[in-house]
């Protein structure tokens, strides 16, 4: 986890708000380093974590988490982490063979028009099954669902409505019912002012998700252009409901990603400049 980001968001492994829906988004940039931050944060906080790793292999996340001080293999063995490796599961669906006993989580690949119900069923059964049944040897904290990332579901043929439904169902189950947190990554490619309305599947998804969430971290490149020392800017937006109305608070930071973490600083205060 990134200590500077923790202080910005006012979270520590010991105290963080529950029932949050956190949206990570990027525009022509790469926000996946934030997913690793939240993964290591919640694992350190001894939460029960469900991770839908749809774009990279398990070893990729494991290698990076190792550098951040958390062992994914150990967490998996202890039962703290439930990992869905999308790439692996998808092969058995895309190239069907006779003796296939893989889980049906990626079953939507066969016919994307059906929707993401099978993926949601995977989340729901693993989330609720841990409640009942035989008592677990260790007590874990509140459940957390991480999804990396949602936009690949659009590329695989799911419609924007299906993905929004999926995120809504996940939020209802994990945030409201189980008082846990949900962190999702959505990636966008176009400019903000897109003229044609046909395109914008990812734009519509982003807008729909932004409406549902309580905290967004939006990653973008620098508006002045490419710089080697500053990799981009992060806009943090709190959308908590306080009393009657919504209280929205925004903050802008610039960041640089290192080998073992990322540093965040106020715009213009990069060590390369000062």
């Amino acid at each position, binding site marked *: 986890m990134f200590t500077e980001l923790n202080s910005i968001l006012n979270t520590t492994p010991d105290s963080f708000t529950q029932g949050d829906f956190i949206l990570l988004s990027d525009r022509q940039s790469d926000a996946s380093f934030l997913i690793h931050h939240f993964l290591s944060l919640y694992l350190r906080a001894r939460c029960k974590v469900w991770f839908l790793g749809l774009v990279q292999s398990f070893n990729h996340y494991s290698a990076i988490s190792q550098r951040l001080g958390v062992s994914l293999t150990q967490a998996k063995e202890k039962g703290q982490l439930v990992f869905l490796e999308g790439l692996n599961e998808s092969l058995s669906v*895309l190239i069907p063979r006779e003796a296939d006993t893989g889980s049906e989580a990626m079953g939507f690949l066969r016919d994307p028009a059906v929707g993401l119900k099978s993926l949601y069923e995977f989340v729901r059964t693993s989330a609720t099954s841990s409640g009942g049944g035989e008592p677990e040897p260790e007590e874990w904290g509140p459940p957390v669902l991480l999804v990396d990332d949602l936009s*690949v579901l659009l590329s695989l043929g799911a419609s924007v409505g299906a993905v929004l439904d999926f995120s809504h169902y996940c939020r209802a189950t994990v945030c409201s019912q189980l008082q846990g947190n949900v962190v999702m990554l959505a990636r966008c490619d176009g400019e903000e002012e897109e003229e044609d309305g046909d395109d914008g599947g990812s734009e519509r998804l982003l807008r729909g998700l932004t409406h549902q969430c309580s905290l967004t971290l939006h990653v973008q490149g620098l508006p*002045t252009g490419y710089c080697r020392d500053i990799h981009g800017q992060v806009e943090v937006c709190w959308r908590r409901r306080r009393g009657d109305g919504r209280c929205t608070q925004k903050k802008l930071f610039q960041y640089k*990603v*290192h080998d073992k973490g990322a540093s965040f600083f106020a715009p213009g205060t990069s060590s390369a400049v000062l």
Partner: protein
Amino acid sequence: MAAPVSTVGKPSTERSPFNTTSFQKKTRTKLISIPGTRPSVQNGQLLVSTGVTSLDYLLGGGLAVGTVLLIEEDRYDSYSRMILKYFLAEGVVCRHELFVAAAQDNPDDILQELPAPILDDVAIHKPVEQPRLSCEPQDSLDAMKIAWRYQNLPKVQSALASSSRFGHYYDVSKTMEPEIRQAAKCHCFYLPEHPTHTMLESYSALLKSLQEVINREGFDVAAPMTKSRNILRIGLHSLGSALWGDDLSCHDNPRNGHALTTFLYGLRALLRSSLSVAVVTVPSHLIQDRALMGSITRLCDNAIALESFKGSERETNPLYKDYHGLLHVRQVPHLNCLASKLPDHKDLAFKLKRKQFTIEVSCQVAVHSFIFNRRDLLRKRSSRQQPHFIPEPINALEWQYDQ
């Protein structure tokens, strides 16, 4: 994952029965040695050369095994095809296995056009030499007068040994000798030979064929170590063009816009679990949907785009007379680590010389694109026609100090 060097098993070293001491030199790392590969200095990833040394440098030392390089084709598919041929030729020289898939040309034709390697240290397997006539004064021909100490060293290696160098140079004016080419094992997938009824089936047939080759020839990382390991180089030509049955390049709103992206997802799944590397060329200038191009780029790991000056007004522009086109690095992956090695400069131009494909930072290109891209940016807001790529304004101040 893109094969990290340490997890692939290696046959354990055998202990000699005649060891007088129990001391054994500890091998420094569990490095597997596959010819034509080397570990990356940044994160220990196993890298192969693309065949173009300047492109290797741009990609951070080479192409990581288990990843995909996407090349957005130039308008006439001349330079992207050249890079694909360099990639396959490098595979032949390093004795990797090849898999070539194409819908337009027969893969055998592509393989016959591979450029000839410029080899000093790798020999061509010559047929048995004619026995010399006894009357020929052989000794006097071979006797060295000055460098006589080197007389007894072999002039040429007798077999096609795998070269220990990483990255070779090729002479594009000559094609590779058939003897060298036939030494490498090639698998071909020519789409007209696999008749399919619907559009989506052409990509799934290709994916299925790829998986069959990977499992049969033992490139799977999980496969047992029965024989020595090798790399499979996959070259996929012009995916997304209409010849693959795809209407991405024909319609603004393609009916099955996710066929290619689903294939790329399956390709990534196959590559991450095997010792293979893929180069895919896509005619992006035909695809109007920028967001679709964006998702295609995100599903590949490395992405570059070529823009040749042929046929455009820039061909006669004196600023560009030294180069054949511009090269844009669209994406660099970060595999098994948080940070990716971004290229230092974004204004790159390439030139195809006879013995080298050079990619350079051109000051003139930088200045030109700084001036003209500002104009393009302003023009873009008003016109409906989007440019081929959205140029980033260069922070000229930083560029100056970087020099």
